């Protein structure tokens, strides 16, 4: 063990300088994202805080920025959230259960199904808007209604819910299934009484995050015609608008006051989304079981 002391010391000076330089570059890369995130939040707060009042939350839109509010838009977004929850969770969890518990991976159609879901997750959201425009609004003659918007958002976030639910189901250890089978449970009894209850925290977290993504979406709703002047409460088969659309409409106006109003709308939207995100993360930390 006669290693020269110098060999165990720090390497050549150049290596150290390069290492430090690289570390600084990495910090810059990390910093850029958070700098923008911080600036964005401060900027929006600074611009929008003046218009953040009860008028914004309850009154309908108006051509006068002083009286304009996002009441119908906020209610539209909340209605849509409920519709989405009812539609996307059963279908998404059903698909995940099918893929994880029932499907034979070696069959070509099941492999195609997985590829299909992975691809759908990356299809641009505006393409879903085109689907809605062609089939729901014009094809079925549904018109530009709340249900059409909710259906399109359902399809849009379905892959996200499926992927999250699959991960939650996969993390339930096989020994639980084997134990239930050994006691004579049928496959559905195993799934419904053992696997799903154990997977609920993961599924709920994934679904809330997907929901948060859906209600922030703007582009597909533009195509199913949410950009209308709505003063009444939204109904299932009536004209509707949603908060992101209302924000877009205000941004598109040339007057500066509407820009500030848009910023106020963004504060409300971000508050809703961050609450949902925080709730999802809390749920994950509180109930997630490590097997």
């Amino acid at each position, binding site marked *: 063990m006669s290693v020269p002391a110098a060999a165990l010391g720090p390497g050549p000076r150049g290596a150290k300088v390069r290492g430090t330089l690289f570390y600084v570059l990495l910090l810059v890369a990390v910093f850029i994202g958070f700098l923008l995130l911080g600036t*964005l939040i401060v900027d929006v707060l600074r611009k929008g805080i003046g218009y953040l009042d009860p008028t914004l939350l309850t009154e309908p839109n108006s051509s006068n920025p002083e009286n304009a509010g996002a009441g119908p838009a906020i209610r539209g977004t909340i209605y849509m959230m409920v519709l989405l929850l009812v539609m996307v969770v059963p279908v998404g969890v059903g698909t995940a259960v099918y893929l994880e518990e029932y499907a034979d991976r070696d069959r070509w159609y099941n492999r195609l199904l997985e590829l299909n879901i992975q691809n759908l997750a990356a299809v641009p959201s505006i393409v879903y808007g085109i689907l809605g425009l062609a089939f729901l609004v014009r094809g079925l003659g549904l018109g530009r209604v709340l249900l059409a918007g909710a259906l399109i958002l359902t399809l849009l976030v379905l892959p996200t819910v499926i992927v999250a639910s699959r991960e939650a189901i996969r993390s339930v250890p096989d020994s639980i299934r084997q134990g239930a089978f050994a006691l004579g449970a049928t496959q559905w009894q195993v799934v419904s009484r053992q696997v799903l209850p154990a997977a609920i925290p993961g599924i709920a977290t994934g679904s809330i995050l997907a929901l948060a993504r859906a209600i922030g979406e703007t582009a597909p709703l533009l195509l199913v015609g949410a950009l209308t002047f709505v003063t009444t409460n939204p109904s299932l088969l009536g004209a509707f608008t949603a908060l992101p659309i209302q924000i877009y409409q205000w941004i598109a106006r040339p007057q500066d006051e509407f820009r500030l109003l848009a910023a106020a709308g963004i504060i409300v939207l971000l508050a809703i989304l961050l609450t949902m995100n925080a709730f999802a993360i809390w749920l994950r930390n509180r109930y997630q079981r490590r097997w």
Partner: protein
Amino acid sequence: MATQDTTVGAQPAPIRLRAEGRRWGEVAVKALLALCALVSVVTTLGIVLALLEPAIEFFREVSIVDFFSGDRWAPLFEPASFGVQPLLVGTFAVTFWACLVALPCGLGVAIFLSEYAHPRVRGILKPALEVLAGIPTVVFGFFALAFFTPLLQDLGLGVGTFNVLAAGLVMGVMLIPTVASISEDAMSAVPQDLRDGAYGLGATRLQVSTRIVVPAAISGIVASYVLAISRAVGETMIVLIAAGGIAQITFDPREPEQTMTAFIGATGLGDVPTGSIEYKTIFAVGLTLFVLTLAMNLVSIRLVRKFREVYE
């Protein structure tokens, strides 16, 4: 076990281990679940059909050669012109500026998280990245138009009210979490043995990161890049709000341009009559966009599978 039981038992009655008959409830449940899975297949078919039919009608009226070779996009003017090149150039210009930010920064964040960050720092950074990823695109659009463009103007870059540069750069920051999370997944899948071996040979952290971890995770990193490009091409709201709506061929990022998505958004939100040529252009451009992003997504999915196969 079963044979032993029957010999010992007083009554050697045959034990039937198989189900008495088909359980129709179980069959119905499986069918119902398969039906749920079918929804996503129908969605894909729906998208293809929705795009294809009007797009074919469009290409009956406008030759496909004129569509791709034409350099003037003016579907709403008289005489109308349907050369898609300006929209393609606009799309790639925005994508280029977005990638300039997203690709290096995303990789940097991934290396930092995977190789450098203390677990406690990771615990803060990762949720913060999720927050960044969860901000709606309309908000980024507002930020690009109302904060970033004025900032660029104050810096004396001579940008217009609507310009490609601000839209592209803000989109780039938006895509950092996409690149970072997939790349970091790939890097965490690299076995610790490889790192330990390199450290044992006296490699520095820089050398381990750039010569061991990055090459070993390269398929995942490329996958994240391809996915980020695909998302940049398909992003609508930022460009619709901040890049302006003028379809022109220019490589000057200070100028406004129109992308494929922005055209679809701007045309689709109006009341275009069904069956008119303006209505069909939405689908022709939509089909081009869909095919382009589909190709990139398939490449990305293939690459992700590759790194999963190697290390997991």
